[in-house]
């Protein structure tokens, strides 16, 4: 008999899929906001099913909390045996709960936000498909199903990034995201092969059980782990595969909140945590993961200091925060990393929702913070929730980010050696984080009200000809670039409610893991990581509290600095920019990664295509081979034509010669 938890897992999966198909088929008939409510409803039910899965799993005694349910044989041939199977354990349950809860709130937010978009049903169909894919990813019981879910979320992400498909910028961002994600998929495929050949199975349980029979730090195992990291980094926007994530902000804001902040991009973190037996057995790979995570969190924090597009600032902050998570899980602090994943989902989704509300108030014309200021009075609710989100991001004492980020760092510090350095860098970036988080708050909500803000204070929502903020091109409102109407949180209940809930969670979420007092997340996840060698390597409470104190001080310092630079002495920012223009330009250009890839891959690829078409195709294929083949045929026919002179005597002569030759042959042969 299938355990109840597994049955609930299938329900969790089935609901969003049903929503996808239902909305897609009913696109013509679902009028008004019906599609949106159906989409939200399925995800809400899915969340409830997730809760049921949680409670039924809790009934199982901890050592047995690893339940696998298989639907049918997916591939079974010549040594590759893979079932379409789900795995229910605390880790997957944790992810299911985070994903479905945040997704549900974002769905509800979108019900109003996308209200006047022509692609309303399409949007919710995609969004449900995304949730389905993400759930498939976290519930997978083997690497092949994981890869399927992995690619599905990539596809959903692509579809949603280029949702407003008439904007060239959106389609270009979509193709970029998709291709980089495919690079990650290929990494996973190769990793899966190495795991199969080295460990003899593609099932998590069997593969992880076999890992002990391989020598520690085995070369192939390290290669497999590094390839897993390639997949993880591509999905999670880590160096050097991060370039798609900022561009992905072309999608509608709820998409940025859901996929590119709260859920999909954390899949890499989940993957590393899921494959922890491999990484613990190949510590070199884990160390590389930790180093890349640290570099990423620093890199992204520096870029976030100077970028002016509001959503892109949040995007870089996402990259940076995921760097913390990767650092955490690579330093074997699994529950800390996953705890940060959860709190980050709350406050980052909240920040995006707030940003969406502000951008709406400006009539969707631009997303640059240079054109925003003084929204505090006009949008008090958005201001309050956004500030809570930013404070949680900055690690303001007692908010959720404060506890989770510092837990990651204090675990890292505790591991010592190389990790001490990484933790110090992490603290440095925390200072930058606080600074840029409040740079957004101060620039957007304080200062002189811009036109959008002042008109809103008078009670009118600002309207403008929609233009693409990147190209200045006039938007084609036909394919709903957000449609003719805009919605802000202050006026739409279905936007307000999710933001309020998330703000609450961002404030109190941290209380689940106060050092020395609570350790809910850790206790819940413990059975999943029971085999870990580092399970009990915890920093003592005193060390954790010291870490918290340092983090709190850094956060306050960063916020203070932002206050000084952006509110008290605005000239300071300008003069700093002028004095450090070289650094500034370097950062504004995002360390020139895009240019580098353009030069290194895109252009050579195009050139190669041209070369192939113009030269190889013409000279070798058409010239030498086709020419050769037709040449032989042509020469043959030319010869045959040449002997057809038409002169009777020529034929007669040939005839005679032939007869003579035959006669001669027989004469000689008869000897």
């Amino acid at each position, binding site marked *: 008999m299938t355990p109840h938890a597994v049955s609930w897992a299938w329900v969790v999966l089935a609901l969003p899929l049903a929503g996808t198909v239902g909305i897609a088929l009913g696109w013509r008939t679902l009028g008004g906001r019906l599609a949106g409510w159906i989409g939200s409803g399925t995800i809400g039910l899915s969340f409830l099913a997730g809760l049921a899965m949680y409670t039924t799993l809790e009934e199982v005694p901890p050592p047995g909390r690893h339940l696998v349910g298989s639907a049918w044989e997916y*591939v079974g041939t010549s040594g590759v045996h893979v079932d379409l199977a789900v795995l229910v354990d605390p880790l997957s349950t944790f992810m299911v709960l985070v994903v479905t809860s945040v997704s549900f709130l974002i769905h509800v937010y979108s019900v109003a936000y996308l209200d006047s978009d022509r692609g309303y049903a399409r949007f919710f169909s995609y969004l449900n498909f995304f949730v389905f894919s993400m759930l498939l990813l976290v519930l997978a019981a083997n690497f092949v199903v994981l890869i399927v879910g992995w690619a599905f979320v990539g596809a959903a992400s692509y579809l949603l990034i280029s949702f407003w498909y008439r904007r060239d910028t959106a389609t270009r961002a979509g193709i970029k995201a998709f*291709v980089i994600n495919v690079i990650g998929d290929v990494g996973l495929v190769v990793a899966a092969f190495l795991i199969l050949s080295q460990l003899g199975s593609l099932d998590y349980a069997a593969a992880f059980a076999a890992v002990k029979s391989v020598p520690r730090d085995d070369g192939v195992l390290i290669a497999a782990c590094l390839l897993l990291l390639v997949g993880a980094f591509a999905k999670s926007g880590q160096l050097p595969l991060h370039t798609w994530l900022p561009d992905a902000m072309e999608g509608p804001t709820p998409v940025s909140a859901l996929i590119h902040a709260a859920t999909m991009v954390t899949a890499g973190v989940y993957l590393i945590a899921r494959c922890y037996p491999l990484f613990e057995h190949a510590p070199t790979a884990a160390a590389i993961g930790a180093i890349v995570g640290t570099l990423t969190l620093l890199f992204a924090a520096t870029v976030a200091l100077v970028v002016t597009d509001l959503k892109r600032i949040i995007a870089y902050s996402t990259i940076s925060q995921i760097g913390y998570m990767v650092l955490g899980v690579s330093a074997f602090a699994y529950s800390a990393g996953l705890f940060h994943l959860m709190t980050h989902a709350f406050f980052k989704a909240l920040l995006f929702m707030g940003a969406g509300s502000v951008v709406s108030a400006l009539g969707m014309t631009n997303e640059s913070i240079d054109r925003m200021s003084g929204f505090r009075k006009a949008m008090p609710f958005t201001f309050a929730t956004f500030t809570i989100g930013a404070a949680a991001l900055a690690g303001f004492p007692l908010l959720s980010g404060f506890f989770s980020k510092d837990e990651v760092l204090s675990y890292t510090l505790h591991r010592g050696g190389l990790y001490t350095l990484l933790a110090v860098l992490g603290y440095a970036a925390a200072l930058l984080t606080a600074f840029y988080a409040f740079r957004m708050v101060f620039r957007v909500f304080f200062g002189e009200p811009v036109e959008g803000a002042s008109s809103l204070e008078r009670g009118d929502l600002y309207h403008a000809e929609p233009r693409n903020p990147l190209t200045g091109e006039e938007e084609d409102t036909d394919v709903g670039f957000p449609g003719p109407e805009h919605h802000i949180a202050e006026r739409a209940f279905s936007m307000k409610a999710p933001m309020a809930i998330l703000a609450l969670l961002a404030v109190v979420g941290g209380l689940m893991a106060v050092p020395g007092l609570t350790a809910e997340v850790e206790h819940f996840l413990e059975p999943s990581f029971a085999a870990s060698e580092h399970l009990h390597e915890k920093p003592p409470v005193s060390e954790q509290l010291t870490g918290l104190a340092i983090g709190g001080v850094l956060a306050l310092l960063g916020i203070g600095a932002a206050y000084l630079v952006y509110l008290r002495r605005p000239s300071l920012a300008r003069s700093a920019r002028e004095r450090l223009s070289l650094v500034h330009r370097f950062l504004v250009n995002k360390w020139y990664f895009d240019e580098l890839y353009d030069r290194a891959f895109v252009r050579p690829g195009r050139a190669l295509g041209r070369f192939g078409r113009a030269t190889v195709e013409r000279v070798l294929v058409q010239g030498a081979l086709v020419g050769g083949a037709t040449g032989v045929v042509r020469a043959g026919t030319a010869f045959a034509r040449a002997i057809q002179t038409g002169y009777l005597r020529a034929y007669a002569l040939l005839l005679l010669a032939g007869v003579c030759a035959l006669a001669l042959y027989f004469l000689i042969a008869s000897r």
Partner: protein
Amino acid sequence: MPVLDIPLPIFLALPFAAGVVCLAVPARYARWVALAGAAGAFAYTLFMVADFAPGGTGLRYVTDVPWIPELGIRFSLGVDGLSLFLVTLTAFLWLAATLAVALRRGDGAFERPKLFFFHLGLAESAVLGAFMAQDLALFVAFFDLMLVPFYFLIGQWGGHERVRATTKFVIYTLLGSLLMLAAAVALGVLSTPRGGDISFALTDLAERSLPESAQIPIFLAFAAAFLVKAPAFPVHGWLPETYRATPLPVLALLSAVLSKVGVYGFLRVVLPILPDASVALQEVMLVIAVFSILYGSVLAFSQDDARLVVAYSSIAQLGFITLGIFSLDDKGAQGAVLQMVTHGLVAAALFLIIGVLAARAGGSESLARLGGIALRAPVLAALFLIVAFATLAMPGSPNFVAELLILFGAFEDKIVFGLVAAIGVVLASVYTIRFFQAAMHHRTGPAVESREIGRVDLAGVAPVVAVVLLLGVYPQLVLGLAEADTSARLHEARQLAGGASERRARPAPQVTTPGATVPGEPAVGGAAPGQGAPPPPAGPPPPPGGGAP
């Protein structure tokens, strides 16, 4: 099951007979007759699939009578797990294409429908014959017979420079066929044991092994024919012009089915009969495969003509199939068989969709002139999206499972080739998404009139998409039935290859239940179900087997 008492020759002749009847009846009824023929053939294949036991062992429904006894040529047909789904694919796609042609009225309809359907039926019979032939001479005959109807279909109903294109196509592929004919004759003669009877039966030929020095030239001749047909880089010269000239429903079949006959030949003829040469020239074939993948992909994303995008992508996809076959690994070959089926499906669907797109862009198939079609055609966009994702082998599509197995097979012994080929997967996503976006997204093109896909086109495309989805959820349907017969074809070559580079010792013995089989034995031992294990490669040439009279 009574239906299966109908012998294969009748099934084989059914489409051709329908074609002949098409000539006789008034033009109005021709389409219905053709449809009935195609539908009948497809129904028969469905019965075969239902009838086939999982792990299908050996040939079934065999017909084996002397045809030209003086030359030892037999009319020998049969279906096994390897050919089952190719036969089914053929019948299915022919039905879809016939449907797409037959339902058209007015301007879109083809002229001279009687003759058109006759050629279509003849072509189907020829392809089915090639897939079912169990005698090399018969295979060669059907292989060349395929060319005849396509010559007329392209030459008479084609577009853009059709005469030139047809000439090129025919000459190029005929040259390959000639080489194959010569090779087949040489093979039959050389392998005849002293005092024995000449035989072209594939099973006999596989038993009578030739020395490696004789195998290699024969292998090269076969490879030339099959690679031209596939086509593979660099012998794809006929492809661009032919693809541009061929009418779309015919092109769907040309690209989806005909191209598979070549690679099928590798599995059916070359590997079992010429195992030594296959092993000796393995790397040559892998290089060709990898080059085809990369070259096809790179060219596919630099094309403007929608047909050529798909054309070059076919080169890449067939490169994957070749890679899987010549990885000489069970997984690779399994993947290759699945890929033959799935690529057939998506290629056919893509060409039918190109037809739909062109109808909305004033007849233009240039990517620059398409665009924005998704606006008022969400159903078309959804279908196209699914097909596009399947084409780029997105996980979850059957193509992914196929490429996964192919890559796994390639990684097994030839990891460098596998890794280079994996780049092709990334490139596939570039050109496919580029094609999809150029057609469906962006601003509306200059002459584009966006409207929903019509019922007629839907009748052709939707079933194909449905099958793609079905196989995406349950690819084991194909894999399970094809497994035993595919690996049997590979058996000898794999053993030879295994002798050269001993299978890498697995450091990790299976942790899961080491009971049942002897753990120390190399696990391949169990892989030869029906076939008696052939002697080790170094052994003396086997005594005359005495071909079955």
